[in-house]
């Protein structure tokens, strides 16, 4: 793909990007005569489209707007800052008809409008099992005990004061619901990336490695190979976590999210962070950790979050979110305004490690080109990719395909369904396709 595109009518950033390597060297060598020529050409190109609007120029420039000619608002009008009023459409949304009870439901992150890799805390997706509460941190407790008293030398209770005294770590990780993209296993069902992939967020979490606390209680790691995490909400959600993930230091008991405390909807004041594992295991409002010698077959690992296979068996304890990616600009339900240059941008992630490569196709997967990965590329975190594309006005199908550091390549729908059928609900990591029509309208399609 070409790195710079000739765009009549558009002003290019100057001067660094305006000059080629050779030209910069030429300037350095004392030759400047071509610059006049170059600047004149750029000026002419800018003037052309403006002439159509007004003979003298753009009214947005010529007529000074009120924000340039009046006094603005003082500090602390909004002691806690809010987005611009022009961003009112960038909000979490429910998918109509998906659930019938708001307390056991989902709201989706508006991925179509987000940049980079960090999800603003107010836009982090929600999934509650029995509603959310705003818990009083002074009355919140974390208990650590064993399924057998022998497994823990000293079962302990920690207050938030205790936990926040301990040496913390801060790490960026994605969290994805196991049912993300679950609506699309059988066929296309929803129009935009908010609903196809919006049970996905990524934050910097701050907290204490769970191992620090288990060490402090004197856990018998030889016999206690499973961890049960339990929430303090009405559902007291429980999930089984492997001790190996605790021992390697990855699992953490987090109170911070993007530099502030967790939001109540995301588990304030304490939640478990289980990097790479589906969101249901990141137990919110965490009140108890039990270590034991067997898995627990809790409701959310024996009735829900089990993957139905074509032979009628359910896969139980499926936890890892396998390598996946999606283009969010442009994406379903959006409209390209004109032909020409577009930056195709998306996110990639893997529950097994780091993203090493993302390929993008604009022809439905016949040919692929490697996209630019934007740093930082981190373990079990969203990774942003970008690639240049010139839309020629003809129909196109945009796809992205991510590869992680285990060498795993994100599969197609045909490959996934050949093994898992269409009824598993969970863990759909197929390549997403967005069809661009001649009208410029982008829509959700599935390429087999």
């Amino acid at each position, binding site marked *: 793909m070409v790195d710079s595109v000739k765009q009549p009518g558009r002003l290019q950033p100057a001067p660094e990007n305006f000059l080629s390597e050779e030209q910069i060297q030429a300037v350095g060598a004392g030759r400047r005569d071509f610059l006049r020529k170059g600047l004149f050409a750029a000026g002419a190109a800018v003037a052309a489209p403006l002439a159509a609007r007004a003979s003298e120029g753009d009214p947005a420039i010529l007529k000074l707007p009120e924000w340039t000619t009046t006094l603005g608002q003082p500090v602390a009008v909004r002691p806690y800052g809010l987005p611009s009023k022009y961003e009112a*459409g960038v909000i979490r*949304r429910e998918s*109509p*008809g998906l659930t*019938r*009870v*708001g*307390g056991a439901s989902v709201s989706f992150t508006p991925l179509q409008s987000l940049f980079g890799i960090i999800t603003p805390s107010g836009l982090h997706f929600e999934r509650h099992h029995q509603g959310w509460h705003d818990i009083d941190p002074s009355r919140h407790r974390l208990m650590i*005990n064993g*399924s057998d008293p022998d497994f823990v*030398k000293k079962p302990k*209770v*920690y207050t938030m004061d205790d936990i926040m005294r301990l040496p913390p770590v801060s790490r960026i990780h994605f969290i994805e619901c196991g049912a993300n993209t679950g609506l699309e296993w059988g066929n296309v069902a929803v*129009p935009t990336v908010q609903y196809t992939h919006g049970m996905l967020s990524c934050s910097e979490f701050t907290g204490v490695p769970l191992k620090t606390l288990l*060490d*402090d209680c004197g856990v018998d790691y030889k016999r206690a*190979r*499973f961890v049960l995490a*339990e929430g303090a909400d*009405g559902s007291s959600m429980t999930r089984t976590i*492997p*001790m*190996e993930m605790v021992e390697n230091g990855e699992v953490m008991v987090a109170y911070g999210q993007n530099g502030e405390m967790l939001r109540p909807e995301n588990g304030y004041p304490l939640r478990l962070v289980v990097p790479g594992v589906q969101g249901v295991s990141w137990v919110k409002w965490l009140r108890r950790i039990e270590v034991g010698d*067997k*898995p*627990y*077959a809790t409701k959310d690992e*024996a*009735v829900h979050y089990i993957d*139905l296979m*074509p*032979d*009628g*068996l*359910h*896969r*139980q304890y499926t*936890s*890892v979110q396998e390598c996946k990616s999606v283009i969010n600009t*442009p994406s379903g*339900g*959006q409209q390209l305004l004109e032909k020409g240059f577009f930056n195709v941008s998306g996110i990639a992630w893997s529950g097994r490690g780091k993203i090493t490569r993302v390929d993008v196709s604009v022809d*439905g997967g*016949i040919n*692929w080109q490697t996209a630019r990965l934007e740093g930082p590329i981190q373990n079990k975190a969203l990774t942003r990719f970008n690639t240049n594309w010139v839309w020629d006005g003809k129909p196109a199908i945009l796809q992205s395909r991510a590869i992680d550091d285990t060498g*795993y390549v994100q*599969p*197609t729908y045909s490959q*996934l369904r050949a*093994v898992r059928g269409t009824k598993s609900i969970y*863990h759909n990591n197929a390549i997403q*396709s967005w*069809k661009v029509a001649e009208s410029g*309208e*982008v*829509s959700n*399609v*599935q*390429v*087999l």
Partner: protein
Amino acid sequence: MSRFSKSILVLALFGASTATFAFDNFKGVGRQATPAEIKAWDIDVRPDFKGLPKGSGNVDRGQELFEEKCASCHGTFGESNEVFTPLIGGTTKDDIKTGRVKGLSSGDLPQRTTFTKVATVSTVFDYIQRAMPWTAPKSLPPDEVYAILAYMLNLAEIVPADFTLSDKNIAEVQKLMPNRYGMTTDHGMWPGAPAKKGGMGNGGIPDVKNVACVKNCKSEVKIGSSLPDYARNAHGNLAEQNRTFGPVRGVNTAGDSAPAKPAAASPALELAQKSGCMACHGINNKIVGPGYNEIQARYKDQPDAETRLVAKVKAGGQGVWGAVPMPPNSHLSDADLKTLVQWIMSGAK
């Protein structure tokens, strides 16, 4: 200066030495849990019944409790699909014999119910005990949990109508669970140790493989599915769900005569949604309970309607609108109850 560096060095050494001595490492942080505290919170019940409280309950008592506390969401026979997916149905006598629900592979099931999926009876006990009823979790003592579970097992035709379930015989019931052999952990998506090392699964080997082909990877593009036209605006006007500047716009799916944005929701409507009322009542339609328009119509000419309705919503009730009972709503304050009732009686707008 040299003394300063030395003290840093000492500190560093101290840090390194304590790191290896992990147990009870952080002086003054946390305290020992008391046995009573552990008993209060350690309520989980494992598939091997570790953690199961002593107690018992029979099917008849279970039916009474179910009708009182569960039927408003789940239906009298656990069959309701109105609020949550059904609990009961889809299993056969033959499934109880084989331990595999045949409908899961034959495609005969219109919908998976709890009992078509769950392999472990401990799971159901644990969940009822920790999370039910919906608006009053953890309010059921063990004997009531046993009774309700006994009733559900009877509905699923796993135990007879005169059955009494207890901590003594629950292991025998496990041997009759219709989908008891229906789970597999033979997959690569358990992030811990593999089965051969005491964990589960195959140690992370993926079941689906793709290769990163780059050029001429296939001869044609087959589109298997597209968004149906009727689904184009099922999620509202997409133009309002995208920015109005930048490289793209949202598609206007509201048509040319796009309706104005709905007025801001009323605080009372928000309260009704937040309090779980809308799960059972629609504004203009019956769901499990009557629509608010029906309630208003019935009570509008009664001078004491407000007082009576506040009391009814608070205490719950049965019979006025049919057999399905309304659960008590003791989680709502009197002020909130009044707000809700006034809102309903003024047309729920």
